[in-house]
């Protein structure tokens, strides 16, 4: 791709400030038709901000956006969209009360005077089929799990027939199968001459997809490269600004006694017949397809969903009717749904951090100082990058929100923590920090359950892996039996996997 071609979309010396804080400093950038351009960088580096400027959702503080070489001061996202520039946002951008089909066609409904429901439903179905997504066009978005919501977002973007498609971490909440489907679509669009901008913290995806790579650090471009010029390690180094080695900590070996025993556990309607045990100092991974019931199991275990069966904590039977019961027994849960269940987006960092542990911050009167101190510590421990401490959490970058959520979950100092998708949207450097953090916790005597759709993560982190399929335990793998193929077989449910589960 030579420079002779006019870029479809470009930035010229763009800066962006929120109040007094400048988060983008003089960015020059261009995006060509028929290329996949990857934008990578640490959490808070400014990727989403840059994408929003390209897509017309934010105005640059200074500098220019160029469309086909001509200045294009978009006044709004829809205006940019009308000119073929479409964005898949990092945050969900769907109306929860509306159905899948209604969301996809919002603002561009079919039908002259009356809405043509049938045509829209058909077109929706076709888009979903193309994405191998099995949700019904009439399902309410409110009722969909996050991964399906993301597929709907993608379907919505595809329906726009974009010339320029900007994707802000589209794969963060997807499973590997869905990611494959997405890749096929991206390749199809590239072949059709669409200009694609892609960001992801999964560097293997970048390696696989990108024709060009732009690395952003602290709001400035620090590296530009063509396909094949950067290894994943180099990308990580360029992003973080230092060498990263040993992303995954070594496995642990000496475990304590069983701290949690689950038998005949069911979370209606999907999950049933679950039994497993968890030892002190152990990291138990739970793997499975989307919809296999991992989240439901976890939410049942911590009392967030009605459940049946027995739970033994340190040998004694316990009933956990609510999350506070669970907390009393030293359990904590980190939700996979950061926006809807994890954080109060319009509240400050402090208020979010301490929400589930307020009791510790003074009774009857809360101590602002103690809370601030806890926040200070959390910001340090979890490397949360917030331009201002009293900003609304919704304005944090996605990865930093995730880090705050992790800090919030760990604040009660649980003995058992269930982490549902721990590193969604987290940059590689921080990811590694989190893995080592989990390892340190385990070595200090905590027990950790990690639910993850990220295969390398689950393989690299777990001492044992429990695989779920259709609401049941498909098998448990331990020690040397943990291999990618073994896990995949259990996940998919081939006959070998049944044997493997018996051996396990």
């Amino acid at each position: 791709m030579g420079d002779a071609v006019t870029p479809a979309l470009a930035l010229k010396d763009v800066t962006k400030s929120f109040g007094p804080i400048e988060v983008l400093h003089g960015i020059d950038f261009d995006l060509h038709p028929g290329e996949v351009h990857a934008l990578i960088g640490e959490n808070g580096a400014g990727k989403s901000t840059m994408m929003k400027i390209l897509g017309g959702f934010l105005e640059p503080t200074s500098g220019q956006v160029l469309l086909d070489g001509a200045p294009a001061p978009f006044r709004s996202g829809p205006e940019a969209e009308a000119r073929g520039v479409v964005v898949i946002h990092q945050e969900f951008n769907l109306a929860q009360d509306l159905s899948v089909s209604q969301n996809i066609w919002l603002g561009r409904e079919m039908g002259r005077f009356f809405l043509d429901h049938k045509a829209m439903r058909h077109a929706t179905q076709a888009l979903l089929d193309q994405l191998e997504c099995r949700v019904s066009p009439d399902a309410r978005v409110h009722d969909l799990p996050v991964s399906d919501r993301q597929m709907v977002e993608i379907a919505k973007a595809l329906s726009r027939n974009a010339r320029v498609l900007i994707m802000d971490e589209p794969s963060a909440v997807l499973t590997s199968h869905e990611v494959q489907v997405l890749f096929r679509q991206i390749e199809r669009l590239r072949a059709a001459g669409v200009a694609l901008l892609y960001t992801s913290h999964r560097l293997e995806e970048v390696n696989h997809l990108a024709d060009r790579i732009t690395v952003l650090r602290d709001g400035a471009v620090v590296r530009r490269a063509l396909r094949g010029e950067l290894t994943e390690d180099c990308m990580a180094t360029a992003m973080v600004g230092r060498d990263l080695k040993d992303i995954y900590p070594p496995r642990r070996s000496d475990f304590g006694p069983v701290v949690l025993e689950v038998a005949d556990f069911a979370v209606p309607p999907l999950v049933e017949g679950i039994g497993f045990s968890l030892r002190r100092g152990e990291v138990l991974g739970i793997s499975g397809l989307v919809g296999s019931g991992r989240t439901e199991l976890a939410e049942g275990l911590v009392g967030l969903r009605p459940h049946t069966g027995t739970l033994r904590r340190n040998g004694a039977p316990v009933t956990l009717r609510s999350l506070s019961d669970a907390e009393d027994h030293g359990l904590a849960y980190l939700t996979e749904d950061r926006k809807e269940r994890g954080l109060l987006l319009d509240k400050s960092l402090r208020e979010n951090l301490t929400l589930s542990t307020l009791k510790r911050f003074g009774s009857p009167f809360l101590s602002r100082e103690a809370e601030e101190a806890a926040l200070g510590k959390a910001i340090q421990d979890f490397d949360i990058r917030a331009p201002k401490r009293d900003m609304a959490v919704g304005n944090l970058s996605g990865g930093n929100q995730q880090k705050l959520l992790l800090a919030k979950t760990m604040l009660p100092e649980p003995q058992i923590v269930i982490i549902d998708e721990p590193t969604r949207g987290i940059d590689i450097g921080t990811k590694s920090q989190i893995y080592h953090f989990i390892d340190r916790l385990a070595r200090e005597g905590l027990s950790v359950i990690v639910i993850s759709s990220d295969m390398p993560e689950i393989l690299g982190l777990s001492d044992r892996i429990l695989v779920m399929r259709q609401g049941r335990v498909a098998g448990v793998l331990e020690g040397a039996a943990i291999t990618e193929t073994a896990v995949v077989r259990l996940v998919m449910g081939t006959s070998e996997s049944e044997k493997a589960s018996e051996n396990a």
Partner: protein
Amino acid sequence: MRNLSLSTLGPLAALILLIVLGASLNDNFLSAANITNVLARSAFIGMIAVGMTFVITSGGLDLSVGSMAAFVAGMVILAMNALQPQLGVGLPLALIGIGTALAVGLLAGLANGLLVTRVGIEPFIVTLGTMGIFRSLVTWLADGGTLSLDFAMREYIGPIYYGGIFGISWPIITFALVVVIGEIAMRHTRFGRYAEAIGSNDKVARYSAVRVERIRLMTYVFLGLLVGLATILYVPRLGSASGSTGLLWELEAIAAVIIGGTALKGGFGRVWGTVVGVLILSLIGNILNLANLVSPYLNGAIQGVIIVLAVVLQRKKTSAEGR
């Protein structure tokens, strides 16, 4: 039909229970005359409630509709009385009245809508303010008393309320038309779709090129027009307007909307549900008149109990979902 979910079936069941109760209390309950009465008087609040459904669905609220109805009625009467010397009693004057009602309603709705969308004040405050303003204005116009239409003219336009076609009275026909149009607008036009989208998440709607402020404005204007239409039927019935005309209609209209299953927070509108809500509220009053069940002092209590019960069925679900 997919729209007939639990949230509409709940109030529907309550409505049917009320009808059975009424029929068992009094033989005349199901007489044509009584049914006509109940439906016709539901028409005022009913049409307003249909408009209110759109306002609430898109995340708004309008507390001013009762006072607005009084104000519109006052203006209609003033206009007709002023022009009667020139035009005489007859169709032209009636048309002037109709035109005045629609125009004043539209302008009043526009005023509310502009304050909400352009000036950016909370709908609750805007319409609380205009509620006071409209009611005050009509009291002032009436010099503290009652504005009344000339009796001859009242006789002439009486058939608008009392007359009809094929034995169905005009208010019922008009109400039915408004409901059908409302239902179509909600389910099958962009207007309704956008109202739901805005109420569900206005940022998403804005990102999808929906003209959020315009649709919001339109919901208030539409409601204002319907208040005007309701007044066209109201004036022939009572022939007058005063500071107490339309008192608490806003509460009744909002209650009908919510009973019908529309979410107060917006995002979710049910025109049919609203109709059921209006009928429930009308029937409660009718049934209390059918039999001297208790001291009239307790009517309000019975009404309260039934309103709550009517919603219990339907809400069971929501609460279970919530935990």
